């Protein structure tokens, strides 16, 4: 079934978050659906690392400030390397 607007937005957001954490914060790539693991400790840890690096409130959650920064244009060099 075609996703409705909200569901599609949610999926787009998860896509953005997954790539952001993989590309810039060295989150291990994983074939499992990201939405299902976004509350897992490795992902929460990476969200916290990203929030700390970028000077955001460290919540470990995908709050609006965190998602807003992830949508901003930026440099392609990773923030955290292996």
């Amino acid at each position, binding site marked *: 079934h075609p996703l409705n607007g909200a569901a599609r937005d949610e999926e787009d957001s998860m896509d953005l978050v997954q790539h952001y954490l993989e590309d810039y914060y060295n989150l291990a790539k994983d074939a499992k659906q990201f939405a299902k693991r976004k509350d897992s400790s490795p992902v929460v840890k990476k969200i916290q690392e990203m929030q700390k690096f970028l000077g955001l409130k460290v919540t470990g959650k995908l709050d609006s400030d965190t998602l807003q920064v992830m949508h901003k244009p930026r440099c*392609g060099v990773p923030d955290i390397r292996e």
Partner: protein
Amino acid sequence: FRTFPGMPKWRKTHLTYRIVNYTLDLPRDAVDSAIEKALKVWEEVTPLTFSRIYEREADIMITFAVRNHGDFFDFDGPGKVLAHAYPPGPGINGDAHFDDDEQWTKDTSGTNLFLVAAHEFGHSLGLEHSKNPEALMYPVYNSSTDLASFRLSQDDVTGIQSLYGPPPA
């Protein structure tokens, strides 16, 4: 500030740069002056000097490209990633790539080429991203930067001088 692992840096103070191709968003002379101004930002606080060459391999090769451009780090269309650059060294190292799917502008109505170039050249010279939101080397593009009064932050100056020292007195 942060430097790259192993603190790669240029072992010479005179570096060359080459503008390999141009974006169609701006007149060529506007690209030339934005690049020159972006290098001067670092020149003013270090012993480094830059000269432009028009052929052969320069230390800093500057290219505009879209999507897959041969370095395993594809650009992603308009928005998100604006550019990337490589730390000091031979070959692709030191080079700076700009995503030509962005709308490059002289002011901040689009993506300001001078600001992004100055940030990427920080990488070309050995700086990684800074956690300081006031720093030029902070990873997120700040479209509200006042270009007229732009200066490197102390974090940027301390960082680059940790690699090359201050300019000669």
